[in-house]
Structure formats: C-alpha cells, structure tokens
C-alpha cells in the first residue's frame, strides 16, 4: 500500500508547499508575540479607555474560533470596509497572530502581575523610575515565567497554519488535497506524509519548548 515509489512521487509535490507553511508560521510568530506584548502591557496601563479597549479585543478573539476569524478577515472585512488586506497571506497571518496574540497577552499580563510586590517596592526604594523598574527588575523576571507557555503556543501556531489552505494558500496541506483529489486511492499515503511533514516541523519547536521550560526553572527555588 505505502510503497517507496508512491512516497518518492508524493514527497516532491508536498515539498513545494513547505515554503509557504514556514513563511506563514514565522510571520505569525513575530506578529503574534508583538500583539501579545502590546496587548498585555495595554491591559496593565493606567488609561481606562486603553485597558477596556484591549480587554474587548482579547475577549472577542478568545471567544470566537480561529477558523471563523480567518474567514471573517478574508471574506467579510473587504466587504465591510471596502479594502482588501492586499493578499490572502496577510489575512492568514493576521488571523493567526491576532488570535494567539490575544491568548498570549493573558500570559504576559499574568506573569507581570505575579512578580512579587516586594520587587516593585525595592526598586522604588532604589529611586528607579517606573520605566526602569519595568525594564530592569519586573520584566526580566516576568519573561522567565512566560517562557514555557510561549513554547506551547509555538506548536499551536504551527498547527494553525494548516488553516490557510482553506483560503487558497498553497501550503503543504493544499498540495496534499490536490494529490488526494487527483488520485483518491493514494489518500492514506498522502495524508500520512502531510502529518509527518508537520511533525518534523514541530520537532524543533517541541525541543525548544523543553529548553524554555528548563530555562524558566533555573534559578527558582523549589518548594
């Protein structure tokens, strides 16, 4: 059933999609973390309007599902405002990064809030400005706490990139679907290979996550 010749036939076709998958993943990771930090800090701001507004963003994007957001950005947004996002690429990247940015902003907020109060007080006693307090004392400690969860979300984002094939982007799954529709009897080999492709992409992320976990544990007194 799964023969070497079938694999060697399918493999190069799927390879054509790997570039799009990786590009979408990297762009989503960069934008996702950016949104996470912006939204996380805005939710801690003293400005009520800013806080409420980001709160709304976070709840809306966490409360609806990614596939709905993707379709909304791709099909509905251009109708509503009369402008295109330029390409399906940006619709895909924006959907993934806005969605996971909302989830991760909660981690940013939670980690900053859970840095012990005494640290802020000590930094104030040392006559640091509020910016210095955040940059030199609070933030370095908070980032350490964020690392394990951030690692998990890397893998979530990789899985999410498979959705962009639904809006016509030519990623791995897109080529898999084309192969399947041209020869249905090949479907098991095709999808198994697609899964293996994603798993191989996920492996470095899995090890990175473990690394981040061990970094985050280092220097923390065990109970």
């Amino acid at each position, binding site marked *: 059933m799964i023969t070497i010749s079938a694999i060697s036939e399918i493999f190069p076709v799927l390879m054509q999609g790997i570039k799009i998958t990786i590009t979408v993943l990297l762009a989503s990771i960069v934008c996702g973390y950016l949104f996470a930090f912006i939204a996380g800090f805005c939710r801690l701001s003293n400005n009520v309007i800013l806080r409420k507004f980001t709160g709304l963003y976070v709840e809306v994007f966490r*409360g*609806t599902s990614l596939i709905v957001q993707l379709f909304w950005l791709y*099909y509905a947004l251009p109708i509503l*405002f*009369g402008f295109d996002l330029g390409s399906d690429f940006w619709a895909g990247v924006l959907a993934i990064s806005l969605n996971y940015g909302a989830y991760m902003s909660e981690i940013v907020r939670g980690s900053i809030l859970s840095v012990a109060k005494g640290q802020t007080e000590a930094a104030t006693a040392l006559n640091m400005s509020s910016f210095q307090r955040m940059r030199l004392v609070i933030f370095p400690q908070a980032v350490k706490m964020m690392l394990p969860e951030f690692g998990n979300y890397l893998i979530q984002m990789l*899985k999410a*990139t498979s959705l962009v094939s639904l809006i016509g982007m030519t990623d791995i799954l897109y080529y898999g679907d084309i192969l399947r529709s041209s020869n249905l009897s090949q*479907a098991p080999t095709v999808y198994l290979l697609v899964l293996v492709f994603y798993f191989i992409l996920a492996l470095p992320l*899995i090890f990175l996550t473990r690394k981040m976990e061990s970094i985050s544990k280092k220097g923390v007194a065990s109970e």
Partner: protein
Amino acid sequence: MNGNWSWDTFSEAFPIVLEGIWITIGLTIACYLFALIFGFVWTFLRRVPFKPFNWVVTWVMEFIRSTPPLVQLFFIFYAWPMVPVVGMALDPFTSAVLGLGIHFSTYIGEVYRSGIDGVDKGQWEASTALNFSTRQKWMKIILPQAIPPTIPMLGNYLIIMFKEVPLASTIGVVGILHMANSYGAQHWAYLEPLTIVAILFLILSYPSAILIKKLEIKMNTRFDKKAVLNGSSKGAVS
C-alpha cells in the same frame, strides 16, 4: 464606512445560520465525551510498566498533539476508507467525532495524569495496607481524589473544543459555519452570516468561560481547605 452592512441580509440570514447550532453543540458534546473516555485509555497505556512500550505511547501522543487537527480530520474522512482491511467509509459527523475526539483525548489524558500524580503517595500505600484490590484502589481511593481537582481544566478543554468544532465544516458537517458559508455562496453575501457565526460563538463561549473561572476559584478554596485540615502543607499556602 459601514455602508455595506445590510440589516435585511442580517435578519434573513440569522434563522438560517441558527439552524446549524444544534449540530455544532451536539458535535461538541459528542467529541468531548469521546475525548473524556479515550483520555483514560492514554493515561493507562502510559502507566504500563514496560519502558519501550511507554516510549512509543508517549511519542504517538506527541505526534497526535503536534500535528494539525484539520489534517487528521481529512485523514479520517478521505483516507480511512482507502486503508486496506480496517478501512471503512464514515459519515462526516462520525469522522469529526473521531478526529477531534482523538486529537483532544491526548490533552485530556495529560490532565488525568496530572490529577493522578497529585494524589498523595500515602494514599496508595494505605490502600495497599488495607488489602484493596487494584480495581478497588483505583475506583474507591485514587480516582475520586484525582479527578475533582482537574474539573476546571477539563471545563477549559470543553470551551477550546467548542471553538475547534467549526473545523468539521470543511468535511461537510452542517454546523453554523457551514450554514453561513453556504448562505454566503448562494447570495454572495459573506459579511452578515460570518458575523452572525462570530456573535453566536461569543455569546456561547464567553459566559461559559466566566462560569469555569468561578468554578476554578471555588475548587481552589475547597481543596486548599482540605489540605489545611489534613495538616499537609501542600497547596495550603496561598
């Protein structure tokens, strides 16, 4: 700016999209129950005291967890009928229950494991000392203590799963997203039906998220109190 928004389309599309809600909710519940039960299978497979087997199970779980559920759905729906001997054609609903159910069972299995690991070692020793059979040990001592603390986490997974269920529209399960897309294709109006879908998700998932948050706080205080009464320091500091 929003001159393209039409309330007429909105009110026309609303009942049509709403027809799909029962399929969406039904699929969520079916997937969830499947994952709850299948999660136990993973938990017990990982406890088999044979290293190589353990290693294989761990990596199979990792494989399922780190590959996209969408591809897994396609595998079960399109490829499974073509697999020799064991393969058979499944309808979209069953495929979705299997695909999403298996995907999330690996997460649920981890939740169970954390619950079981959280049970004090003395409980195992005490039940052995009292001459309990393995079955009694699990049913009467370990699981009743392991599962309740994980309820908030399990509740979170219910909400996460609810938000993953629209993936099933890609293999033809006629939930709300599918209804909205077919309405959009027929009338060439995607804005209103897709917005309705988003609103429906929001009004269903937001209150449940708040409910679970409350449950979590309640459970935390309850289990902390217990720990204090038992004189155990674990988890008592808060």
